[in-house]
């Protein structure tokens, strides 16, 4: 039967996530069950602590204020506008609303029955992912593992939400799987597996896979004495097997493996377990597929004979970044790959330069990457930030040694510039005599920065304290790091100064239409994602790592270590790490799209999902800044 009204609702919903992720048939079904409500300006939709409604809401017209009373004081948490979702709590957990919602102007809402969504969540991992993100934007600790566990309990498909793979690349699988029949003894099967150096064997009957034995079965069923090795394989095999058609993509394979909690997928003729086996896909295969391209590039770098080749390879790496982002490969993986490539390029540039000089270095030295390169978070071609440290030498030797390294640094930075890393405008480079010094001199430098924290010195320490060894002697690098920690330990007030600077940039509240909603209620229309979102997270991770003497630079790794160091703040740090991943991905894709460094985001160009994604990152920033404020007593520090 024709249903004009629900068709119109369908037309509206399909423009907005997560409804755009649902099949038309399902969405039409949803559209037929929608409830429509009208609210006057300031009318309450639900109050804080109200019992959950049977619907969650999408704003069709108007806007909605979300607020929360804390100690009788009303705090506006957000203003949602057309297409925004709210009231998701009952969908996630059966608890009363933790915030109130009222109409900000006259408003029409579509109420989406929660009952309908339980199945949808099961069938569409991307929908649950989106709903979690939306929900998280208004909860205290977005993206924390704690919530994730609770969300839509029993849905294994969404457990690994962070690694949402949409890789369209088809997965390479083994087309000659090793098989045996069901009456084979376990011992014989193990001999076949050992001979073929594989960790699984598929049991087939007339070419049709009926079960699988993996190393784990041998461990848990034979090793424990539950079965004898003379038993037949069909007694211990896992049956039925998880099957998939031949054109499996990496993304699908990942999802299947996560969903079924298996390590092997049987590829069959038509994808069911009723047709012939044509291959086997293991978790290992997936890892190889992903690692394939970068390892090739690294090899090429190693074989490169000149700077031109390096430049060419770096361009290919940019393409790789682009591809990865399009395929929604986890950002952590992407940064690792790109950092490895950048490191390899720098190493090669140093080697080429040494041979150009025609003289090996007179003493041991380390080439250090600073800033984002030092943190291994550089995805786009940005400026070079580097420095050099050489062994302590006698005053008599000093000039000769320094001259050698200055010449080397000159050549290396020149090569890096040719490859595509622009010279640092602030001249923070090893070719600057100030930053090409001996270990002793570095130690003095650090001490000066730490004991006399004036603004410009703090800014330098922010750049330099994220140094990372790229090439050369590890002991020198370690000694430098130790001197930083030791000096800070003696001058803990330095962390308070660092904290003060770190807090200079509070995150915005969220977005409302084309504007940023600032804490003080003001609006702005362009967003400096680097200073307002990424840097605060980087800064926070740095100061907390310095506090714990953690010798790591990468922001994600820092948060991961902090999770271990402070289990009581696990959720906070995890949400920071996740927010950071999202922001970095965002900045990189914006940068690639606009061919710039991705620093500024034009809010008008963002779609609903992007805005939500960005917004969800602001909460952790705010929370971690609060933590720093308290811990380092930054309020006692005078304006720097």
């Amino acid at each position, binding site marked *: 039967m024709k249903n*004009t*009204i*629900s068709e119109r609702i369908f037309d509206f919903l399909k423009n907005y996530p997560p409804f755009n992720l649902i099949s038309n048939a399902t969405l039409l079904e949803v559209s037929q069950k929608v409830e429509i409500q009208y609210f006057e300006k300031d009318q309450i939709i639900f109050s804080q602590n109200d019992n959950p409604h049977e619907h969650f809401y999408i704003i069709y017209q108007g806007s909605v204020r979300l607020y929360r009373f804390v100690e009788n004081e009303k705090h506006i948490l957000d203003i949602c506008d057309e297409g925004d979702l709210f009231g998701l709590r009952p969908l996630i957990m059966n608890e009363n609303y933790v915030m109130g919602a009222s109409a900000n102007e006259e408003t029409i809402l579509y109420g989406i029955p929660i009952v309908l969504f339980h199945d949808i969540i099961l069938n569409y991992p991307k929908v649950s992912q989106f709903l979690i993100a939306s929900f998280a934007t208004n909860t205290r600790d977005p993206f924390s593992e704690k919530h994730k566990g609770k969300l839509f309990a029993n849905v294994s498909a969404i457990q690994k939400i962070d690694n949402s793979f949409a890789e369209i690349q088809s997965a390479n699988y083994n087309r000659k799987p090793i098989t045996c029949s069901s009456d084979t003894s376990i011992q014989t099967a193990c001999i076949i597996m050992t001979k073929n150096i594989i960790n699984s064997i598929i049991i087939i009957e007339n070419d049709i896979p009926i079960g699988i034995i993996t190393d784990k079965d041998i461990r848990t069923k034979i090793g424990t004495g539950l079965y004898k090795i003379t038993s037949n394989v069909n007694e211990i095999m896992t049956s039925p097997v998880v099957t998939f058609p031949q054109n499996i993509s990496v993304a699908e394979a990942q999802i299947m493996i996560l969903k079924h909690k298996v390590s092997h997928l049987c590829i069959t003729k038509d994808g069911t377990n009723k047709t012939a086996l044509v291959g086997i896909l293991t978790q290992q295969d997936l890892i190889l597929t992903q690692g394939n391209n970068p390892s090739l590039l690294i090899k090429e770098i190693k074989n490169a004979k000149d700077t031109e080749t390096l430049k060419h390879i770096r361009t290919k790496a940019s393409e790789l970044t682009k591809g990865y982002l399009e395929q929604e490969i986890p950002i952590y993986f992407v940064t690792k790959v790109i950092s490895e490539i950048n490191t390899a390029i720098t190493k090669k540039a140093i080697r080429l330069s040494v041979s150009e000089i025609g003289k090996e270095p007179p003493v041991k030295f380390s080439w250090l990457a600073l800033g984002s390169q030092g943190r291994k978070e550089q995805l786009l071609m940005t400026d070079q930030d580097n420095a050099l440290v050489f062994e302590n030498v006698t005053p008599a030797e000093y000039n000769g040694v320094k001259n050698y390294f200055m010449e080397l640094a000159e050549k290396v930075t020149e090569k890096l510039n040719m490859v595509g890393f622009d010279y640092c405008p602030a001249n923070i480079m090893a070719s600057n005599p100030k930053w090409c010094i001996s270990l002793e001199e570095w130690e003095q430098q650090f001490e000066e920065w730490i004991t006399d924290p004036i603004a410009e010195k703090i800014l330098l320490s922010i750049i330099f304290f994220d140094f990372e060894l790229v090439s050369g002697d590890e002991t020198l690098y370690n000694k430098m790091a130790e001197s930083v920690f030791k000096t800070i330990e003696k001058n803990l007030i330095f962390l308070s100064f660092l904290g003060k600077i770190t807090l200079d940039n509070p995150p915005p509240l969220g977005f409302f239409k084309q504007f940023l909603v600032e804490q003080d209620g003001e609006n702005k229309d362009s967003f400096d994602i680097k200073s307002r979102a990424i840097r605060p997270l980087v800064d926070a991770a740095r100061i907390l790592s310095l506090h714990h003497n953690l010798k790591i630079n990468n922001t994600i790794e820092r948060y991961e270590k902090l999770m271990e160091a402070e289990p009581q703040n696990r959720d906070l740090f995890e949400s920071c790490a996740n927010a950071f991943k999202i922001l970095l991905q965002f900045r990189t894709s914006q940068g690639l799209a606009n061919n710039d460094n991705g620093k500024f985001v034009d809010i008008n160009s963002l779609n609903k999902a992007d805005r939500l994604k960005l917004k969800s990152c602001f909460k952790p920033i705010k929370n971690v800044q609060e933590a720093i404020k308290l811990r380092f007593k930054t309020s006692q520090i005078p304006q720097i």
Partner: protein
Amino acid sequence: MISWFKYNNYPIFWKEYSKKCKQKQPKSIENTRFVVFDTETTGLDIADDRILSIGAIGIFKNTIDVADGFEIYIKQNQFKAETVEIHGILKEGKLTKLSEAKAMENFIAYIGNAVLVAHHTAFDIAMINAALKRLNLPKLKNKTIDTGILYKKLEGKKESHFNLDVLCKEFNIPKHDRHTAAGDAFITALLFLKIISKLRKERNLHYSDLFRVSGKEGLL
């Protein structure tokens, strides 16, 4: 006697309907089921013209319930080419069409004892009653509300008389599917909610207020 005799000859759906209409109904806006409906017709002549389609949607507890919707198209013996351009319903379109008898049966079963709401109710009710009469059935028994009249209850609107398009503009209602029965019913439903909400703001609104004709005091 005659009426009893007649009643006994009525089809079951009508008897069910009559029974429902006799039930005591809650006298509160919150707990009343409203059915907002619209008809598209071949013209404005109640005797000669025919209903082409009926669209309707239910409102309960101040909420439009899309699941409680109704949309039918009726087979035509008569056909007026000149109105096609308004309603867009062709004599032999792709839509599934019901006979007038079946359409009335479905509509009666759907509305039950709900309060019927339409913009300029009189015409739509008259068209339905004419169709019922052709089936030898009595008139509709439901209470009715005209959004056009309801609008006049708002402060300062007593003398106003507006068509749906003008009211859509005033109340900021998007005019999707205007001139389809279901589309107009939906628009009218939004209009109904908005007017009620405004009336509530102006005064302590009671269920009975919805039915009292505005400006009566002035006339008497």
